[in-house]
C-alpha cells in the first residue's frame, strides 16, 4: 500500500526503470512463457512416471483369467442378438444383458432416466442403464470399483462397443467365483453415451431430490434457484427456464454399493485391435490421478498390449533427443488442445467431478480416423485373452488399494505414455504471461500516479515547506505535543490537494457502473440460449442450434457497436485519461486473475486464454486525441486485432482450422462453410454441455471473457483528451 499512497513514487528509481523497460519486459515474458511451454516437451524438463501409491502393487498377482472362450461366445451371441432383434433400432438389448448378468449370479438392476431437452421444443429422451453388482465376500459393501461400457447401437456414427460388453461379461463371469475381492465391482452398461453415465452417477450420488436439500444443490451448474440474480422476475413473460426443472431426471437406483474408488471404461468394437488408447481427459479438464493412468499403461505393457496416449505410441521410441522432444511436445500439445473445451473424451470424464478416478481404454486399429499411426500394420492383433489379462490385473491392483487415490499428481500434462510434467513445472509458463499483464498494469498505475504527482508537485512542495516551518514553531512553543500527531496532521495536509485533484479527474462511480454493466451483459448473454432457441423455434421454426448461433452472432455484433458509447450514456462530461487508465489497469488485473484461477482447475483453458489475450492486453492503451496519424493507424490496427480475438471469431477460426486439418484438399470457401457449421455445432454443444453436465466453457466465455473483451474494445475505441 505504500506504493499506492506514497507521493514520491514517481521519482523512485525503480519506477523510472519500470516505465522505460516495461514494454520489452512484457514482450520477453510472453516469449519466455511460450518458450518455456515448448521446452516442457524435452526430456530434461519433464519426468519419468512412477508409482506413488505402494498399495497398488501393480502386476504382482499371477493372472488367472481364463474366460476368453466365453468372451468370444458372448461377443458372437451379442452380435447375433443385435442383428436379429435390434437392427436399426436405438434400443439397448436390456433383456439380453439382464439375462446374461443374472446368469453369472450378479445382482442385476436396471435404471431408467429421462432427459427433457432444455432447448428448442423440449423433446424428451429416455434411456435405460443396466448394471450388475458383484458383492465382494466378507465385506459390507463400503467400497466399489466400476467397470463400464457405453452401449452404442450398430447404426450410430461411432464404433460399437460389442467386444467391450463381451469382455466385461466374461470378466464378470471369471471374477464372480473368486474370493479375493475386497471391493464390490459394479458392471455397468450405459445408454446414450455420456448422458446415461451422467444420469447413473447423479442417481448414485442422489442428486435428484425434488426438494433440493443442500447436498443436492451442489450438483449441476444449472439448477432452479441457484443464481441470486433471477432473470425471470424481470421478464415474466419469457420462458427462461423451461418447466423450472433440471433437464436431466436421473431417476432412482434400486441397488447400490459403497463409495466408488475407481472406474475403468472399455470401448472395444472388436477383439482384433492393434493397440489401446488410454483416454484421460475429463469434464472441465479434470484429470484422473496419475497413479491410475500410470497403472493402466504399465499393466497394458505387462499384458503385451500396445498402448498409446495422444499420439505417443508405446511401440515408437524417438531416434534421438530432438525427435523425442518433438514427439513429447506434440503429445503435450494434443492433450492441451483436448482439454481446452472441457468436454470429456469418454465416459470416464464424468466420474472425476464425483472424486472418482476413471480412465477409458479404447481399442483402435489401423483404420482409425484422426491421423496416420506410424508402423501400426506391423503390430500383432490383440485378443480377448490379452485384454482379459490386462483388465484382471488392473482390477486386482485396484482391489489392493487400502485408501482412495490421494497420492501422486492430479494436475499434470503427459508428454508421452511414460513421461509427465507436473503442475510445478508447467505453471511458470502461465505465470509468466500473467506477470506480463501485471507488469503492464503496474506501469500504467505508476504512470497515472506520476502524472498526478507532476501536476501536484509544486503545490506539494509549498505545503511541505509551510508545514515544516509550522512544525518548527510548534516544537519551540510546546514540548507536550506528541510528534506522531504532528506528522499525521502533516500527512493529511499533504494529501488533501491530491484527493481533490482525483475527484476532479476521475469518477470512480461512473466507470465502476460501466464495468459492472458490461459484466451483467455477459451474464445476460450466458442466459440467452433459452430465449433464442425458444423464439427461434416459435417464429422462424428453426432448430435450436441455428437460432442460438445466429442469435449470438447478432448479439455480438450489436455489442460491438453499442459498447463504445456505453460510458457516455452514464455520464455528462467527457471521459478522462485517468479513468480509462484505471479501467485498463482493472481489466488487466481481472484477466490475469481469471487466467490463473481457471488454470488451477483446467490449465489448458487458462493457458489458451492467456496466450490469446495477453498480446491484446499488452498492446491496449488509451488513445489520446490528436496524437498524430501514425498513432491513429496503429490504433486502427489494434482495433482490427481486437476484433480478431473476439471469442466468437476465435471459435469460428479454430473450427475452420480444425475442419481444414480434417479435410485438407478442399477449397477455402467450402472449408469456411464447413467451419462455420462446425462452429454452430460447437456452440450448441457447449451450451447443452453446460446445462446437462456442468461444463464451464460456455459460461466462462460469455460471462467473463466476453465482458473483458468488451472492456478492451471500449478502451480502444474511446478517444480522450490529453491529461
Amino acid at each position: 500500500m505504500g506504493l499506492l499512497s506514497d507521493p514520491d513514487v514517481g521519482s523512485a528509481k525503480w519506477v523510472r526503470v519500470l516505465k522505460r523497460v516495461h514494454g520489452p519486459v512484457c514482450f520477453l515474458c510472453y516469449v519466455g512463457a511460450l518458450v518455456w511451454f515448448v521446452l516442457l516437451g524435452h526430456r530434461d524438463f519433464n519426468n519419468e512416471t512412477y508409482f506413488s501409491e505402494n498399495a497398488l502393487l501393480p502386476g504382482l498377482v499371477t493372472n488367472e483369467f481364463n474366460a476368453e472362450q466365453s468372451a468370444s461366445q458372448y461377443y458372437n451371441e451379442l452380435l447375433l442378438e443385435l442383428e436379429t432383434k435390434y437392427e436399426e433400432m436405438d434400443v439397448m438389448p436390456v433383456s439380453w444383458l439382464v439375462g446374461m448378468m443374472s446368469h453369472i449370479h450378479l445382482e442385476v438392476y436396471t435404471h431408467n432416466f429421462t432427459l427433457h431437452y432444455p432447448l428448442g421444443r423440449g423433446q424428451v429422451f429416455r434411456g435405460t442403464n443396466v448394471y450388475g453388482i458383484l458383492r465382494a465376500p466378507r465385506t459390507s459393501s463400503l467400497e466399489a470399483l466400476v467397470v463400464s461400457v457405453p452401449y452404442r447401437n450398430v447404426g450410430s456414427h461411432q464404433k460399437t462397443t460389442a467386444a467391450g460388453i463381451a469382455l466385461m461379461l466374461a470378466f464378470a463371469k471369471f471374477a464372480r467365483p473368486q474370493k479375493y475381492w475386497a471391493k464390490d465391482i459394479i458392471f455397468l452398461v450405459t445408454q446414450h453415451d455420456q448422458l446415461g453415465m451422467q444420469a447413473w452417477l447423479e442417481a448414485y450420488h442422489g442428486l435428484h431430490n425434488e426438494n433440493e436439500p443442500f447436498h443436492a444443490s451442489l450438483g449441476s451448474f444449472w439448477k432452479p434457484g441457484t443464481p441470486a440474480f433471477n432473470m425471470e422476475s424481470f421478464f415474466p413473460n419469457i420462458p427462461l427456464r423451461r418447466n423450472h426443472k433440471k433437464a436431466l431426471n436421473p431417476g432412482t437406483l434400486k441397488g447400490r454399493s459403497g463409495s466408488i474408488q475407481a472406474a475403468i471404461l472399455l470401448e472395444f468394437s472388436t477383439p482384433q485391435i492393434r493397440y489401446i488408447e488410454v483416454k484421460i481427459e475429463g469434464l472441465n479438464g479434470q484429470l484422473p490421478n496419475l497413479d491410475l493412468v500410470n497403472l493402466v499403461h504399465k499393466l497394458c505393457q505387462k499384458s503385451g498390449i500396445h498402448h498409446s496416449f495422444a499420439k505417443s505410441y508405446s511401440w515408437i521410441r524417438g531416434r534421438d533427443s530432438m525427435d523425442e522432444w518433438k514427439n513429447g511436445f506434440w503429445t503435450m500439445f494434443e492433450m492441451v488442445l483436448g482439454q481446452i473445451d472441457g468436454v470429456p473424451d469418454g465416459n470416464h470424464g464424468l466420474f472425476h467431478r464425483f472424486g472418482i478416478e476413471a480412465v477409458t481404454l479404447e481399442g483402435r486399429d489401423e483404420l482409425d480416423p484422426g491421423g496416420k499411426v506410424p508402423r501400426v500394420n506391423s503390430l500383432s492383433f490383440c485378443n480377448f485373452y490379452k485384454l482379459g489379462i490386462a483388465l484382471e490385473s488392473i482390477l486386482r491392483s485396484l482391489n489392493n488399494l487400502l485408501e482412495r487415490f490421494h497420492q501422486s499428481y492430479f494436475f499434470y500434462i503427459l508428454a508421452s505414455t511414460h513421461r509427465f510434467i507436473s503442475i510445478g513445472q508447467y505453471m511458470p509458463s502461465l505465470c509468466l504471461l500473467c506477470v506480463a499483464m501485471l507488469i503492464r498494469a503496474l506501469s500504467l498505475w505508476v504512470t497515472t500516479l506520476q502524472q498526478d504527482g507532476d501536476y501536484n508537485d509544486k503545490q506539494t512542495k509549498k505545503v511541505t515547506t509551510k508545514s515544516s516551518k509550522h512544525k518548527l514553531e510548534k516544537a519551540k512553543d510546546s514540548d507536550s505535543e506528541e510528534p506522531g500527531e504532528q506528522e499525521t496532521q502533516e500527512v493529511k495536509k499533504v494529501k488533501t490537494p491530491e484527493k481533490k485533484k482525483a475527484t476532479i479527474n476521475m469518477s470512480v462511480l461512473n466507470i465502476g457502473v460501466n464495468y459492472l454493466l458490461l459484466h451483467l451483459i455477459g451474464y445476460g448473454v450466458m442466459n440467452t440460449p433459452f430465449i433464442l432457441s425458444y423464439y427461434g423455434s416459435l417464429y422462424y421454426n428453426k432448430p435450436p442450434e441455428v437460432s442460438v448461433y445466429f442469435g449470438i452472432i447478432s448479439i455480438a455484433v450489436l455489442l460491438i457497436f453499442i459498447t463504445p458509447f456505453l460510458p457516455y450514456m452514464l455520464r455528462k462530461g467527457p471521459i478522462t485519461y485517468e479513468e480509462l487508465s484505471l479501467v485498463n489497469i482493472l481489466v488487466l488485473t481481472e484477466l490475469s486473475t481469471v487466467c490463473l484461477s481457471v488454470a488451477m482447475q483446467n490449465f489448458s483453458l487458462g493457458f489458451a486464454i492467456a496466450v490469446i489475450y495477453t498480446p491484446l492486453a499488452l498492446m491496449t492503451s488509451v488513445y489520446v486525441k490528436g496524437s498524430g496519424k501514425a498513432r491513429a493507424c496503429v490504433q486502427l490496427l489494434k482495433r482490427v486485432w481486437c476484433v480478431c480475438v473476439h471469442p466468437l471469431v476465435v471459435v469460428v477460426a479454430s473450427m475452420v482450422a480444425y475442419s481444414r486439418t480434417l479435410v485438407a484438399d478442399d477449397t477455402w470457401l467450402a472449408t469456411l462453410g464447413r467451419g462455420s457449421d462446425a462452429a454452430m455445432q460447437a456452440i450448441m454443444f457447449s451450451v447443452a454441455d453446460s446445462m446437462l453436465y456442468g461444463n464451464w466453457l460456455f459460461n466462462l466465455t460469455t460471462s467473463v471473457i466476453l465482458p473483458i473483451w468488451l472492456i478492451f474494445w471500449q478502451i480502444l475505441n474511446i478517444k480522450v483528451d490529453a491529461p
Partner: protein
Amino acid sequence: MDFLRRFLSYCIFFTFFLCVRCDEFREELFFKPLPSTHLYSYFQFVTLVDSEVSSFHSHLAPRSLAEVVSRFQVEELHLTLTEGQWRHHQWGYPVLDAAPGAELYAWFSPDVTDVDTQWKKLSATLSGLFCASLNFIDSFNTVTPQMALWPMGAVKSSQNVTSQLRYASLPREIVCTENLTPWKKLLPCESSRGFSALLNSRMIHNTNYHSVGVHVRKVCKSSDCLETQLEFKQTVALIYDYDIIKSNDWSFRKLFGQGLPGACPLSTDSKIYVDVTSNSTQPFTLSPPPDNIILSQRGRTDTKLAVYNIHPDGKMINIGVKHKTKSQIPVSIHPPLFFNRYVLGYGKEFGGIVTEITNNCLAPINVVVLENAPWWLPIQLSTLRVNGEAESKLVQSQYYSPGRSRQKPYHLELLIKLPPKSTTTITIDFEFVFLKWQEYPPDANHGFYIGSALISANLPTARNYTSLPITGTTFDSVINDTKLWYPIVFRTNGAMVSLPTPDFSMPYNVICLACTVVALAFGPLHNICTKELVLKPSGTSLSLTQKLLNLFKKKKD
C-alpha cells in the same frame, strides 16, 4: 481297550454331572439354502444355569463370562463380532441379526446406579476376553436406545429398562481367528468335540459372511416365571456362496474341511436341522438320510425341517446335499421388509444419509429406526425428511439427542408407520468436520465408517422369518410357533464417508527432513562443543611457564 477307556471316562463324566445337574448344555446346527446361490449355516450353543448358583461354581457355563456378568450386574448382554453384510433383500432374515464389525449392548440390573462406569468396565473386560477392540467403546460412541431395543429375557414388568441399557457398535472392527479362539474356549467341549469342532477358522473366515456372537439373558424356568435361569447362548452364523465353493452340492467336508466327530459328550441334546422346503422346487437328496422330517407351520408359512439327532459316539458324520439338476437361476422374492442405506452427495462439505425402507406386505408395519451418527458427522434434525417432507404423517414418535464434539454421538430414533406396499425414504443431512490431526485413524484416506442403523419391527408375517420366539431357547420352539407379531431387530448396512483429510505425507516429509538435518548437524556440533582444536607445535615443546606467559601475552594484545 480304547473303547473301554473312553466308555469309562464317559461314565465318570456323566455320573458327575447327573448328580450335580444344575447346568444344561445343548448344541444345534441349522442349515438353510438361501436364494441366489447362498447357504446359511447357523450354530447355536446354549448353556442354561440356575441364576441363584454363584458364578464360582459353574460347571458347564463359561466361568469367565459368568463372572463378568455377575461382577458388573449385567441383566442381559449381546455381543456380536461380524465380518460382512447380511443382505436382507436377497437372503431373507437371519436367526439373529448383527451389525458389521463389533456390536455390544447390555442391560444392567436396576441396582446399578452409575451405569456409564459399569458399561466402560464391562466393555474393557470383554475386550480382554474376546481379544476385540471393545475397549474403544467410550461415551462418544455409546447411545441409550429409547425405543429400538427391548430386553429378550425375563425382566420385571415394573422395571425401567431403558435407562439401564447401553448400545455401541464399532463398524471398523475386523473379526478374525483371534476372536474365534477365545470364543471357542467358553464352550464346555471347546473345539475338541461336538459341533464346535467344525469351526475351523481356516474355513469359516473364508465365507461370505460370518458372525460370532455371545448372548446372555435371563429366562423363566417355568411358565409362572418365579425362578429364572441364566442363558448363555453362543452363536456362529456363516454364509457360503455356491459360486465360491464351486458347486451347489455341499457337505460338511466341503464347508468345514472335516466331518463332524459326534456330539459333545456334555450336551443334553445335539441336533442338526436342515431346511428342506426348497426341495420341492430344486430337488436334492440329503445323505445320510435325516432321522425325521418335521413340517412346521408358522403363521401361514410352511417350513420343512430335516432333523438329525447326533450322539456322542465319536463316529464321523458327513451330512451333505446333492442336487439332482444343475443350479437354475434363482428367482429371489423380496422379504416382507427390506431396506437400504447409503450416503448422498459428493465433495467435502455436505452430505446426506438415506435410509430406504420398503414394506412389501399388504399390512402397515410399525418400525423404529435408530440412526446413530458419530460426533464427527453432525446430522441436523432440521434437515430430516421422511419421503421428502419435513413434517411427515408417517412419523408417530421421535427422539433426538444431539451429539457433542468428542463426547457424545448424534442419536435419532423415529417410530414410523410404513404404509403397505411402499418405500419410505428417510433423509438426513450432515456436514463434514475437520478433525484434529491426531484423531485421524491410520490410513486416513481409506474413509470413515458410519455404523449401521437399527430397525426394529414387528412383522405381521413369518415369511423369511427364522428367529426363535422370545420365550424359546432351542430350535424346537420354532415349530408351529404361530404368533400375531414376529418381533425382529435389523441392522442396515453401514456406509463410508471420506472426511477432509490433510496430506499426511507432508508432516512425514517434514519429520524426515528435520531428522536428517538434525542428524547431520548433530555430529559437527557435538564435535565442536566437545573437542578442542589445538595447534600442535612441530618444534620443541614449550614448558608450562612459557605457555602461561604466552596466554598473558595474548591477553595484553
